[in-house]
């Protein structure tokens, strides 16, 4: 493919090992004492120490987890073409402005009428990319780009998640305004990004990967001030098993 250099999952064995995929701020997690584990080629943060404390943060205050390993694909085309491809692959679902669609572990997020962002568990990224490319190869011009590493992503979870964001963004996140599956552009701490409310008090924040360290710092600082903490994926899974596609 022409765009293999965009795809982290295109890494090949060299000198006897396949290069591991790393978060844009894995170096910062390592310094914080993160425990790393492998998932679909990625080295993900399993936790930072006490899993029970991290689970408690998810349930009682607020937890922030680096989930940059989520697959991200961008689909572009005429509005009708994009809708058609999404409907084809998302079980007939349409794209509604401001709302994401969850289907088969994949979030389909409308950026505009002619552009959609697709969020996948890392295990599904390659397959879905190929399916999208196949679907986009029709008569009408549509394009699919792998943008997994273009965006960093943090899961912000817990009853104080909304309060955490209130320290850094003016977006109205009241539950009746930013309902479940709401998806919106957002400025967090003066950096552009996107926010998805996955459900309940669980948010997924996407931002330019270059800002990953800055954004992480801002959210962790706000969360810790509110009694929360950084957590790994083990705590995310344990806190709400089976609910989140980001969990292993």
């Amino acid at each position, binding site marked *: 493919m*022409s*765009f*293999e*250099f*965009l*795809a*982290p999952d*295109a*890494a*090949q*064995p*060299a*000198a006897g*090992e*396949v*290069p*591991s*995929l*790393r*978060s*844009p*701020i*894995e*170096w910062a997690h*390592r*310094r914080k004492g993160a425990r790393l584990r492998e998932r679909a080629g990625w080295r993900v943060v399993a936790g930072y120490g006490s899993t029970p404390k991290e689970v408690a943060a998810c349930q009682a205050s607020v937890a922030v987890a680096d989930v*940059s390993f989520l697959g991200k694909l*961008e689909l*572009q*085309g005429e509005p009708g073409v994009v809708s058609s491809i999404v409907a084809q692959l998302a079980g007939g679902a349409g794209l509604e402005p401001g709302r994401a669609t969850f289907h088969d572990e994949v979030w389909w997020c409308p950026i505009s009428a002619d552009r959609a962002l697709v969020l996948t568990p890392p295990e599904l990224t390659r397959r879905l990319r190929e399916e999208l490319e196949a679907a986009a190869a029709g008569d009408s*011009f549509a*394009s699919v*780009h792998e*943008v*997994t*590493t*273009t*965006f960093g992503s943090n899961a912000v979870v817990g009853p104080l998640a909304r*309060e955490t964001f*209130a*320290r*850094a963004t*003016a*977006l*109205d996140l*009241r539950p009746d*305004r930013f309902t479940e599956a709401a998806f919106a552009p957002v400025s967090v*701490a*003066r950096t552009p990004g996107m926010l998805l409310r996955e459900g309940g008090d669980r948010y997924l924040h996407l931002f*330019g*990967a*270059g*800002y*990953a*360290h*800055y954004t992480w710092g*801002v959210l962790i*600082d*706000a969360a810790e*001030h509110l009694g929360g903490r950084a957590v790994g994926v083990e705590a995310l899974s344990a806190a709400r098993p089976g609910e989140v596609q980001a969990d292993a």
Partner: protein
Amino acid sequence: MSRLPPGRGERIDRERPVAFSFDGKRVAAFEGDTIGSALHASGRRVLSRSFKYHRPRGLLCCAGQCPNCLVEVDGWPGVRACTEPVREGMRVAHMNASPSLRFDLMRGTDLFGSRLTPPGFYYKTLIRPRRLWPLYEKILRHAAGLGRLPRRQAEREWRTEYRRRHADVLVLGGGVAGMAAALRAAELGADVVLVDDGPELGGDLLAGEGAESARELAARVRAAGVEVLAPAAALGFFDGIVAVWCQSTLHQIRAGHHVAATGSIEQPLMFEGNDLPGVMLCSGAQRLASLYGVRPGKAALVATVADRGLEAALALHEAGVEVVGIADTRSSGADEELSARIAQERIPLLRGSAVVRAFGRRQVKGAVVAELDEAGRPIADSERGINCDLVAVSGGTVPATSLLLQAGAKARWNEAGGAYLPEGVPPGVHAAGAVAGHESRDRAEISGAAAGAEAALELELGDERDRARLQLERESLSPESEPATQLVPAAAGSANGRHEKCFACLCEDVTTDDISFSIDEGFDSLELLKRYTTVTMGPCQGRMCQLPSIRQMAADTGAAVGEVGLTTARPPWSTVPMGALAGRPFEPAKRSAVHGRHQELGGNVLWAGDWRRPYDYGDPEGETMAVHEGAGLIDVSTLGKLIVRGPQAGAFLNHLYPNRFDNLKPGRIRYGVLGDDAGRITDDGTVCRLDEQSFYVTTTSSGADAVESWFAWWLAEWEMETHLTDVSQGLAAFNLAGPRSREILSALSDLDCSNDSFAYLDGKRAHVAGVPCLLLRIGFVGELGYELHCPGALAEHLWDAILDAGEAHAIRPFGLEPQRVLRLQKLHILVGQDTDAESNPLEAAMPWIVKFDKDEDFIGRWALESVNERGPENKLVGFTISDGVVPTEGAAVVADGKPVGRVTSSRFSPRLKRTIGMAWVPAGLAEDGATITLADGGRRLGAEVQIAPFYDPDQERLRG
């Protein structure tokens, strides 16, 4: 100790003692006390010294409204003692007095110097010699001021932050009206935030018989889900946002509807010595007694203009304070029931009388009362002295309209009420309670509930029954009752004894004489008077002084009070630390995926645009030489990277760039310069054609976002069948450069890296150390080099692999500074450094890049054709200086003593052993060997122009 027996509504817990220190001495208090109540209970009457005259000041309002009790708490200046709760071990100190609060040397300005220091004296007396103004200013600031900030940074650090809160209804004021409004709106389903500046909801009710019902109402408000922010100061309306400061957080509240239930403010009275400790507002004395169980004085004289003073006298009497008399300015019109109760309690009621002077050295010892004539002036021979240690005054009330006025309401003078009342409240804003003229408890509660209902109903909450209920409530409130009659005398002074100061503004120590003096000087409009005297500009923000100064001005000018007008209501309505306004500092920074490696390698990381990048790794010269002699690796992940894809992608780029891209072959790279409509250079970079329909475009690091926006804008305008995807932050990019770079790359990849197979300006895709890469053979630094672009998730792996493989070839990481030297040797421009807002490619030594023979129109074509026709006026050239002196970047190029150009870049090249640079010079000087003169500060430097690159002019190393 002057504690009263326990009362029902008191806020203190007598079972929980708390100790703190004031000026180093231990003070006993109870939990629930404020610093002010505890100090008053311990017998201290003087808490601070005034701003200008350093007069002793004590508690006045006990509600955080006035400036009289500002103290320093644990090193923090400007804390109001009357509202700040005591904490065990807190260190409280006086402000603005030296050497002690009791003996303050600067009191001399009051006793001896006040005639020399009228308003604006410093504008007149300290203007010459002008150079001494900084000294004068320092002395003035030292003499006056409101406390001192800690000098050491550690003591100044304070975590503050912003919190954004959206709400359906924001209620300002936690008195009965505010609580009723919040409760009703919440009951109808609104998301409500209630803000109150007191430590406890309830407002004036807390200091009276309504304390219990106020607390019950507060409990219902909380139970209804209302978010209560208290103690919290609403600072102002800012285009739909109300800023509220609560502890260390500045809440930015954006609500659909606002209810202003900000109540009213009791006013002081104007008489000589009206600032002496022991002169208190009636409401302040009541608060002290009822909330904190503190006896405000042993013998109280009440001075009033309305029934409020009569109520206060009865309340003080019932609390156990001896009320030695009531001086009521009214001869008649007092509430009959109140008058009867006062008579029953045998409290002397002096009708038609006013206090004309309070006396005492450091605190009130007594007061002089005089009868008033029909015009409200004291009758000289009617004066009599009354011994007392408390003068409780009530100059009536004024609605606290400032926030309403900031929201867009207007103010109208009400003669009967003696105050400016709000009118014309804008849509979405509702007024309730005393600020809307509903003073009594019942009316305030009804008006609050009605305002809350109105707000909720306008948000389409509630139903017809709620509308009907609202209608009944509105009817019960009308017709509007006129405010109770009050008679406020002009500033009064004793006809006997020496003339004492009578203060209109306690914050800024502005006396009634100062106002008269300023008017005589011509400052006869209120806004001018405000600026000249600074009246209303102190910490009380006009709460205590606006109306008294207006009255004084009216008396002096003969105008009616209503004609004088109000000063403009501006935020902040309450004093707020600058730190709270600043909030948490957000300084967005981008970092590459291998930022951690740069730190581990000792990178000198600095700002570069919005990126944090290593300028060098400690040895810029050595890093430069490594690139020339072996190999170097630089992280260029900061470059902008765009994918332009589609059937019309080539045509799209042809329209954007002055050069041609539709004929670029797949796998080849071309340099491109972007320009604006005027042909001026805005950015540059490379374009690699990936396939027939796809291009990979790089931009400068700092221009990435702007270029992406530029492309997107024109794409929308031209509606071309092309897609644009920004992968700038997703792809890492490293430049592997130097004569050994080919060997290093070959060791890591199966790619044929020979010059024949992978030539200069070729772009290829391959795996390097297992990492999928786009490799661009380009040479910004002037040596054989490859730019490797790969997914950021694999960046650390690739970086490590290259450095490992390059170890045998003496590879070194290099930073921005070596890169700048290296590119300068090749005369490769840096957009923004070597170009400015006037530079075009024809003059910037790149005429070859503009293809006037293209079929397509391109942005800036017309402008560039114009430049081409007239010929370049200036040119960007290289220059060398042989003696090793490096001119400052920005130094002028001069000819005949006049500036004709400027140096854009200059460095000493360790490779070439001489100074090299680039400069804009007149076109006539842009010739090899021409001599130019540089004016750099005070020195003149001779330099020689060079048109060709300084290093490898034939590009043998680059293309080899």
